[in-house]
């Protein structure tokens, strides 16, 4: 019996080893919005058909994705927090950052709109009003790209939400989806990227309340991990993937992706 267990285990290890040995596979450390919205399910089969490269996506918050990539646990970084990304490249872990695509953030809230921010187009005004009213607001609180963006936006207001943490300001410390679930559960406003919101399936009586401010612009970037810092990376395949994403083929594929008839991501890579 012992022998049987050991042989099963050996097989398991061998299988795992085989998966590792497969040259043409890379790991993308990614923000969750691109994964949860289904973008990868659309893009990766196209990329694989064209190149034969298997892309494995680890979808975590931008903060954790960058931390994992810093530990050399990924070949490509795809996130949305420009200043952190630039820092990542400056530190030498990333080779170069390229603008990939954008969408925008929105503030979603319940239909009864307790803070009365519905239809506002100035995000600072809207946030200030939420703070003044003491209306519930659910924050990611997890150092993700969305969280960093949210903190930047609060920084331009007079309000100090973290002083009200636990009161009207609720930091979930969770991913976008979990924060939306929690916010909707407690009737709080939430800042989310539009892609996640459109593909989110538990909207209940929630709708977009604030949108259209150019400060809500949400830029995604792609960065291959530097093989000089991380010798284990599959740098050729990583570069191929990054190049493909910003190529005409990749950009078209991104533009083609729709949920409920709405385009989720708008390609804006620089012209080659």
């Amino acid at each position, binding site marked *: 019996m012992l022998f049987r267990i050991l042989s*099963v285990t050996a097989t*398991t290890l061998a299988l795992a080893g085989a*998966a590792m040995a497969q040259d043409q596979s890379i*790991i993308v450390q990614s923000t969750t919005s691109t994964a949860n919205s289904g973008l990868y399910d659309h893009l990766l089969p196209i990329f694989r058909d064209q190149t034969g490269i298997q892309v*494995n996506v*680890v979808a975590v918050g931008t903060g954790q994705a960058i931390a994992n990539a810093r530990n*050399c646990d990924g070949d490509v970084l795809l996130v949305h927090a420009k200043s952190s990304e630039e820092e990542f490249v400056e530190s030498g872990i990333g080779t170069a950052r390229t603008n990939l695509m954008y969408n925008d953030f929105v503030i979603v809230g319940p239909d009864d709109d307790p803070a009365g921010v519905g239809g506002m187009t100035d995000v600072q005004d809207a946030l200030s009003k939420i703070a003044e009213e003491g209306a519930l607001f659910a924050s990611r609180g997890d150092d993700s790209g969305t969280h960093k963006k949210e903190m930047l936006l609060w920084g331009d207001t007079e309000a100090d939400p973290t002083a009200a943490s636990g009161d009207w300001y609720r930091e979930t410390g969770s991913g976008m*989806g979990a924060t939306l*679930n929690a916010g909707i559960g407690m009737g709080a406003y939430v800042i989310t990227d539009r892609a996640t919101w459109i593909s989110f399936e538990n909207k*209940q009586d929630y709708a977009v309340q604030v949108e259209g401010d150019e400060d809500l612009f949400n830029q995604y970037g792609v960065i291959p991990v530097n093989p000089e810092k991380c010798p284990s990376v599959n740098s050729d395949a990583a570069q191929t993937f990054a190049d493909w994403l910003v190529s005409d083929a990749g950009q078209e594929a991104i533009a083609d992706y729709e949920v409920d008839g709405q385009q989720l991501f708008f390609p804006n890579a620089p012209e080659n």
Partner: protein
Amino acid sequence: MQSMGDALGLAVALVLSGDADLLEIVLLSLRVSLTATAFACIVGLPVGALVAIGRFRGRSAVLIVMNALMGLPPVVVGLLVYLHLSRSGPLGFLGLLYTPTAMIIAQTILIAPIVAALSRQVIEDLHVEYAEQFRSLCLTRTQTVQALLWDARYSLLTVGLAGFGRAVAEVGAVIIVGGNIDHLTRVMTTAIALETSKGDLGLALALGIILLGIALGVNAAVQSVRMAAVRHAYV
């Protein structure tokens, strides 16, 4: 809000559809957790047996530690394993992060203390019955451990089941070291977490029901083995 009934219907429909992705996820869940259970038994049972029959200084401290380790938080285990298997960690050169092997390692660490602590209790109880007879037969310590492990086999099956249940149900460790990568390291619990984060609570609940069904099936299989053993007075 989706009702439990809708979720149950969806779960049944999913199972009946024979969805290939679902099957892949279910099989990986079973493969990872059963392998981890096997490893945890290989390590945990002898440790449990040795502590059960041993009389040594610091034994009660060992018992306290063993029992406390049963409550290891999966996310802490996941983090520790991640830090070791990360490319920048001491075992990074093995290239095991984000593979099923990493998940097996994490779950083994998670449940080996459970197997050790519970088997210690089971074997100690049996040893009370056998000790004098075994001393009379002049068995060595190794022979004693082997005989106790074998004679407690049906009770230990339940111990293994407790470990398997903990492994197959945990999400905190495997999501960190496995990465929830589609077609590679996605298991039932990480799929449930993913669907929850997508707001697809109905699908998440349906997957949960399927996971429960798997757990029921495994338990029923073990129970039927135990029933046969009870009829033979082998328990």
